[in-house]
């Protein structure tokens, strides 16, 4: 066996071991971020393949888990970037006229109501989390992608704009529409209860 071939076999063996050790945590993380089982599986698989292909870049002094999660996080962000670039937006549903009338004032039936919440740990409530996920998944794909990119990457608005190659006004208009819908959905399904 040549030295090069032996090294490749060695890499395979190490990655196989990592698959056993880290798949569960990585899958749970990918699912937590995407709330899509099939997608989470694909992202984890792609991560291990990328790790195998770029094994030479792995610095032995760093933790494999840290390295794998950094690849996985990049894959998750790439997914949302791609989702953002292939928008499917229904303007009738997504337009401001859903919320505001011709005078640019709130439509009576969409006016924000008072939310009775003093709960500072609302995310600890699994029922609320379900509703939140449900409402997020009702957003058009590119809006959801923009929301996730913003909150996944902890980036400043201007950096996201650079990343997505959009203007700041594009970005906050997307966030505006996404938040209008998300707020409305949460009000109807949770805070109005």
């Amino acid at each position, binding site marked *: 066996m040549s030295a090069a071939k032996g090294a490749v076999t060695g890499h395979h063996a190490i990655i*196989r071991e990592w698959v056993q050790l880290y798949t569960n945590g990585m899958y749970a993380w990918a699912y937590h971020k995407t709330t899509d089982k099939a997608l989470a*599986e694909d992202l984890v*698989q792609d991560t291990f393949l990328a790790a195998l292909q770029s094994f030479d870049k792995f610095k032995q002094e760093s933790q494999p888990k840290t390295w794998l999660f950094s690849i996985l996080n990049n894959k998750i962000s790439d997914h949302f970037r791609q989702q953002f670039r292939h928008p499917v937006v229904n303007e009738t549903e997504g337009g401001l006229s859903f919320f505001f009338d011709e005078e640019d004032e*709130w439509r009576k039936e969409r006016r*924000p109501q008072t939310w009775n919440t003093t709960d500072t740990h609302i995310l600890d409530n699994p029922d609320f989390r379900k509703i939140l996920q449900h409402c997020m998944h009702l957003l058009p794909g590119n809006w959801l992608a923009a929301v996730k990119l913003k*909150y996944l990457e902890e980036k400043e608005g201007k950096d996201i704009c650079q990343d997505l190659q959009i203007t700041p006004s594009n970005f906050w208009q997307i*966030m*505006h529409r996404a938040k209008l819908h998300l707020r409305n959905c949460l009000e109807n399904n949770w805070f109005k209860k």
Partner: protein
Amino acid sequence: MKRVLKKIFLPCTIATEMIEKDIYFKLSALEKLRLFLHTGLCGMCHRYQKHSRLLHRILTELHHEHEHPQAPKEEEQAALKEKITNRLEKN
């Protein structure tokens, strides 16, 4: 009169947009003043602002929590590991 007021104090569409701009970017001093006046007079946009900030906090917490990722079921874990191992073999 209403139209004049609207021009001075912004329509609700723009006010809510500025509320978002304020969260993700910075508003100029003039924009801040106009938004402050608008939300002082418009109870609905004032509520929207409170809700939007709460949503911002919830989303920030949701995406940065590390403690509660849902664990996959055991059979799912095993199947996924096998699938990945098989795919690795082909590469």
